């Protein structure tokens, strides 16, 4: 296996056997190869296996079978080296000591990456500066907004100067402005040469920041590629009409459009049918007809939706 890969898994499988319940397979033979550098998104519905993958990669959980390498080091046999090269940043309300200050949190996590007191203090101050919390360094974390707490979690991830950052749903619960600022920080980290593995449910976020995407469902990879290649693979596009008059409704409904009282109508159409729809609508007198290229969300819905509803 190449050591240029930030994360490489081969036939990675993890099963759980809850008490008095049948065995459940969370990861089912995952083969993954994510290169160093860039932001790599892991997407999938709840229960797809994203968090299990993150926990195995971060050495917290043992795989049932298969291998996982971080920068060429095995997460089971070389767990200690993996821990030094990887930092985990959780979203939500996890991972911080809220009754103490932001700086004291970082001093502790500095100790947990093996930094002495002086080095820890220097790195803590630098990390707080990097995430824009230097002026709140001595405030208790419990007084922070969710966005500030998330920036502090990122600072915690930065304190060990890890080459690989694993961000597990980092913007969950954040307001749009905070989430936007957080994504800028993540891009900065990529520009500094770090590798970022990002799990998220936010498709707009994935499209905005990720260089590669991997879709997981039922513990398996169902699609992988760049956002462009993923969206290009979507067979349908969205056709919308903004000036549908009441007399246009029969035609629109006959062609499978969803019509609304505000004069708009929309439908998904396979690429080969688009020209025919557009021609028919414009011939009928509608002029505000547009074709919207598929987004990552469309790709997600197409991939996951197909699997949920069946062929």
């Amino acid at each position, binding site marked *: 296996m190449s050591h240029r890969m930030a994360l490489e898994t081969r036939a990675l499988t993890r099963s*759980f056997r809850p008490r008095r319940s049948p065995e459940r397979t969370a990861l089912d033979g995952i083969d993954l190869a994510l290169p160093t550098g860039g932001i790599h998104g892991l997407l999938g519905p709840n229960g797809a296996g994203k968090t*299990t993958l993150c*926990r195995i990669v*971060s*050495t*917290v*959980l*043992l795989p049932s079978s298969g291998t996982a390498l971080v920068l060429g080091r095995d997460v089971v046999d070389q767990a*200690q080296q993996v*821990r*030094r090269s*990887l930092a*985990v940043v*959780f979203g*939500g*309300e*996890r*991972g*911080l*000591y*809220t*009754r*103490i200050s932001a700086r*004291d949190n970082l*001093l*502790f*996590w*500095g*100790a*947990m*990456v*093996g*930094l*002495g*007191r002086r080095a*820890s203090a220097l790195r803590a101050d630098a990390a707080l500066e990097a995430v824009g919390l230097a002026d709140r360094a001595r405030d*208790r974390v419990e007084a922070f907004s969710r966005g500030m707490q998330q920036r502090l979690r990122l600072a*915690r991830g930065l304190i*060990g100067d890890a080459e690989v950052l694993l961000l597990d749903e980092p913007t969950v619960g954040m307001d749009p402005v905070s989430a936007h600022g957080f994504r800028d920080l993540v891009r900065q980290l990529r520009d500094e040469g770090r590798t970022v593995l990002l799990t998220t449910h936010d498709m707009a976020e994935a499209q905005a920041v990720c260089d590669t995407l991997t879709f997981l469902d039922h513990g398996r990879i169902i699609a992988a590629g760049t956002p462009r290649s993923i969206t290009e693979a979507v067979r349908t596009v969205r056709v919308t009409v903004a000036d549908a008059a009441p007399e246009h409704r029969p035609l629109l409904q006959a062609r499978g459009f969803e019509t609304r009282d505000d004069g708009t109508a929309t439908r998904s159409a396979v690429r080969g049918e688009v020209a025919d729809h557009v021609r028919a609508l414009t011939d009928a007198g509608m002029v505000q007809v547009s074709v919207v290229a598929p987004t990552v969300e469309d790709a997600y819905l197409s991939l996951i939706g197909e699997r949920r509803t069946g062929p």
Partner: protein
Amino acid sequence: MSPRVAAIAFVGGALLQLRQMGRTPDWFLAWCTTPLTTLALVALLMHAGRPDLAPAAVLAPVLMGMWSESLYVGGEVISVDRRAGRMDALLAAPAPFAAQHLGRMAMVSASSLALVPLAWVPGSLLLGRAVPVAHPALFAAALLLTAFAMCGMATLMSCVFVLARSARTVQNALSYPFFVLGGVLVPVSLLPAWVELPSSLFFLSWSGDLLRDALSATDVEAAGWRLAALAGLALGCWAIGCAALARTLRVARRTGEVGHA
């Protein structure tokens, strides 16, 4: 893992616990109850015309408080971290989890030494004279070894509480039976004979006897051997605590859980 990194994590854990304690007043419950318990016990003995037993009445709340701190503060560290979603980050960190955990337990035990003056001062005030400490060196050594053993016990308890489905019930059940077994309130020699064997395997009984003797003006018999026995039991507590912790972490990595959610 280098000893230096482990030492840094140990100190980091101790400082984290200290900083958290400064912001968590409810962790200092024993600091409030110990003076009051001391006053009650000393007053009881004075009323009964036995002021000579006052040193024992001062000592008992100290040991009870130290035990409670270990049980309720130290013992809950892993459970609280798990509830707050910090366990994964701690387990994924380069420094050994056990080092920071033991640092935190050590700080809990060290802070509980403050219970000595908190019992001694009100006890002396009520008695109208300073409660004498006839053998201060022995007293200090026995106290430090007791704190050391409490640290190991807290580590063990923190694992037990993570695995137990009803941790609070277990916590409550581990107080007074152990005070009796440890001869904290009543010397073991005054209890039924069958209690002596299990009691002799429990570090608190050696602590209580040694500390009581250290307060007494009479010569202390076999102080060195008894200290060695206490040290041995304290080391045993640490060994069992560390083994339990290692097993808990192994199970956590294998099953994906650190006990019941």
